[in-house]
């Protein structure tokens, strides 16, 4: 019995994603992932002041806000040879850590949890037993029987009102939900608590960058000045507030997020054999401790793993013309020398050519081009990027901290490291790295205070600020690790303006269509073999796709061919 499932829109993600899957005898035999929205940001960046690029690029995504701004200022600094002061690096790192904690927690509770937590089942929970379970998991204070009983009453009224708002028409009662009612009730409680909490940690961005979403960045450092004696600058009060926000965030991660993850996981161990997909993992690394040029000082190491061989970490160089390449075999673009040839972003070209069905349509023709995402490959390999890749590269690099966190989780689940190669492993990796991030944030914060105490208050260098100081032509790469994975911006500056600007972003790696050799990218590969209980209720598809935390606005490439000759280069992330 063969059937075709379409999930469009895939909800609880950023952007517009369509999944089509073929199901035979309750198992997915093939799948297609399509990005259905584009904006054309790189084209818009052409000809502009490189110092402005961060603001444009930041608008690629309002969920992982900041990451594109960071990659952008780094690309300009790389091109112009600017070294930023130590405090600027620490402040950027703190903003990075705040982003991870907010983004990962929101992903877990608001975008992913409802794939595992049955809201309606929580109505049957015994508040007293719920309290006992909660207290056995964690010392988080909101855990009394009264607390859960009140929440359950509210939830009951809510469900009985028949007005379910965002919980309407979902898959409650689906047999793939396996948590006891009490754990479901804890999940609902923390869904609401996390919604409250996430507003706090982002204030780190507001303090250093003025607002969130979309805080301000600056080529050459950070815009906020440090002056302990001054009400109008980053002073003792502001720094104390950052310290408290980071400490509270670490508490939430340790006492709520991680315990919930570890309480939910054992009920879904079958999902350690599902959704593994590709066997190759890549990350550019991030959180520099000694300037971005010194890759050896990154907290997130750089590297690639091939064929799940954890005994070898391959070197990755974003500037290597034979490394990262993109092709458009199945994307709505055309290349001068054939769509199947891979081009390094510095030499890329993009010509838009939609050839899909005219809307409204029922199905995409997946034998033809079917997505606005280009297909990136690393040395010809399809690779997965994201938390799982970061944790595996850290683990395989033999770094103690990684071995410790991963080891502790495996011990608790009494399972081998191979369980990481799965949908559940991906979701767990996201939690584990959040633990590391919470710790590192404290280290960066202490270091920032020490620097300031020792009389170094510099946050910006203006030596290359004026365009007159720039070479006639320069090119750079700004690499980063967005919460969703490896991110890089490639830029060429000519005559003081942007000649070419291209982004290859995490969801482009993961969500892209298959390549000329027929190799699937991560989403498609992970869906193959996934069981589907009821094609009408695509809960299992959502589980695996959400485990990647899709962010589609970033992922699309687009170039406008109407106003430009084809000799021009420009790869854009979809939606970008």
């Amino acid at each position: 019995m063969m059937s075709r499932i379409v999930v469009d829109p895939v909800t609880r993600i950023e952007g517009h994603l369509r999944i089509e899957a073929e199901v035979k005898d309750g198992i997915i035999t093939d799948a297609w992932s399509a990005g259905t929205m584009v904006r054309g940001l790189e084209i818009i960046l052409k000809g502009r002041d490189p110092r402005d690029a961060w603001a444009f690029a930041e608008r690629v995504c309002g969920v992982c806000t900041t990451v594109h701004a960071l990659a952008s200022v780094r690309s300009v600094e790389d091109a112009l040879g600017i070294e930023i002061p130590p405090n600027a690096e620490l402040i950027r790192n703190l903003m990075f850590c705040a982003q991870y904690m907010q983004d990962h927690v929101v992903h877990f509770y608001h975008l992913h949890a409802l794939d595992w937590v049955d809201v309606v089942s929580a109505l049957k929970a015994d508040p007293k037993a719920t309290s006992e379970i909660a207290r056995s998991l964690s010392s988080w204070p909101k855990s009394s029987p009264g607390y859960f009983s009140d929440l359950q009453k509210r939830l009951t009224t809510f469900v009985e009102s028949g007005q379910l708002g965002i919980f309407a028409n979902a898959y409650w009662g689906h047999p793939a939900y396996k948590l006891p009612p009490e754990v479901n009730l804890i999940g609902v409680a923390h869904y609401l608590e996390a919604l409250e909490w996430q507003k706090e940690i982002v204030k780190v961005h507001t303090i250093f960058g003025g607002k969130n979403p979309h805080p301000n960045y600056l080529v050459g450092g950070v815009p906020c000045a440090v002056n302990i004696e001054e009400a109008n600058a980053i002073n003792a009060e502001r720094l104390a507030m950052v310290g408290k926000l980071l400490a509270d965030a670490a508490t939430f991660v340790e006492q709520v997020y991680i315990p919930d993850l570890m309480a939910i996981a054992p009920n879904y161990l079958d999902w350690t054999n599902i959704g593994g997909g590709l066997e190759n993992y890549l990350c550019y690394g991030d959180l520099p401790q000694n300037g971005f040029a010194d890759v050896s000082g990154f907290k997130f190491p750089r590297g690639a793993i091939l064929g799940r061989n954890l005994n070898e970490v391959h070197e990755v160089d974003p500037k290597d013309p034979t490394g990262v390449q993109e092709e458009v075999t199945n994307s709505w673009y055309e290349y001068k020398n054939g769509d199947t040839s891979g081009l390094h972003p510095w030499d890329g070209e993009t010509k838009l050519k939609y050839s899909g069905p005219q809307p409204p349509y029922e199905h995409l023709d997946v034998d033809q081009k079917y997505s606005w995402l280009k297909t990136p490959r690393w040395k010809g390999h399809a690779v997965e990027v994201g938390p799982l890749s970061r944790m595996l590269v850290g683990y395989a690099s033999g770094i103690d901290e990684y071995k410790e966190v991963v080891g502790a989780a495996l011990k608790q689940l009494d399972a081998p490291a191979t369980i990481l190669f799965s949908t559940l492993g991906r979701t767990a990796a996201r939690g584990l790295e959040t633990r590391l991030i919470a710790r590192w944030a404290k280290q960066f914060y202490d270091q920032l205070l020490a620097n300031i105490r020792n009389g170094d208050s510099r946050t910006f260098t203006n030596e290359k600020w004026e365009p007159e100081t720039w070479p006639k032509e320069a090119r750079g790469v700004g690499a980063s690790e967005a919460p969703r994975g490896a991110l890089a911006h490639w830029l060429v500056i000519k005559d003081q303006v942007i000649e070419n600007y291209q982004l290859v972003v995490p969801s482009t790696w993961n969500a892209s269509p298959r390549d000329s050799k027929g190799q699937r990218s991560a989403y498609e590969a992970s869906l193959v073999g996934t069981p589907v209980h009821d094609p009408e209720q695509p809960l299992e598809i959502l589980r695996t796709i959400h485990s990647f935390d899709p962010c589609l606005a970033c992922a699309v490439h687009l170039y406008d061919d109407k106003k430009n000759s084809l000799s021009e280069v420009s790869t854009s992330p979809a939606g970008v």
Partner: protein
Amino acid sequence: MMIDTPTPKTDQTLWEEMRARGVTRRDFIKFCTWMAAYMGLESSGVAQVARALEKNKRIPIIWLHFQECTCCSESFIRSSHPIVADILLDKVSLDYTETLQAAAGHQAEAIKEQTMKESYGEYILMVEGSVPMEEDGVYCCIGGKSAQQILEEAAAGAKAIVAWGNCACAGCVQSANPNPTGARSIKSLIKNKPIVNVQGCPPIAEVMAGTVVHLLAFGRIPQLDALGRPKAFYSRRVHDTCYRRPYYDAGLFVESFDDENAKRGYCLYKMGCRGPTTYNSCGIIRWNNGTSFPIQSGHGCIGCSEEGFWDQSPFYKRLAGFPGFGIETTADKIGVGLGVATAVGIAAHATMTNIRKRKTIGQQPGETETEAEQEESNA
């Protein structure tokens, strides 16, 4: 078991909804006070808001996403008052929002269709993102339909439309030159409905919440300025509400990021600040529960609540003088699009302070001394 799609219950008032969810009378009044304050109502307005919320029926809301980056949704969930997230967002009336709803695919679409049918003429349509009009709309499709089709269908039965953020209000970054996908604002496509343009990239959370509460409480759209923005939040320039304004008036400026003047928190005008041509509440409400706003954190305003602000770059090139000289000046009076970063000077404040300041600031890039003097004499 799957819960059947419930028929939206529109017979409950917002207060009944809140009470059913365990909100106390005291919290409810606190919430009304807070909202009334944000909406700029007199203290008597609190009772007005409370009364309206007590007696008005809930309004279903459909929230659509087109060409956007989701920063507006993200901003909305940063609202500092818990009732906003808890009540407005989750429970009262949000029947369709791709970002947060549990259902996906055709189940999600079914909810939207139902709201559109059963609450025809009653629901509020909220739109995040612009609509690409080139190539018959193939640049943004959801469920196989183009954004334009979806918008037209959803707008037909909407009582009013709220355009969230610069994308829906003015096309934002994707409509910046050369606007490759033909991204358009909602107001340019839908002509026969009241539209509230809640500007910003993104708008401030409290401004979003205030707009929603206004709709719920009074059942009509708030007073708007010439650009369709709620006056309560967009009638003052960032420059006129900026706590660094005294430094501007005194001619004390940051000359380079992180210089001694930056460490003293002087005015960022010379760093390209767009405060003088930008209407928003950043200086008053500030961001993220009043924590800070761009200028307070050392970077100039980039003008994100104004139409076409992306093409007013470079952002670090200072404005060449600007019109208006007081908090009472609104976008209605001075028109729009004056924030052009060129050497075309327009009369600044006709006061001694400013003439003195003009000397302090010196000439614009590319401006001769004679032109600078010329401008001064115009002032």
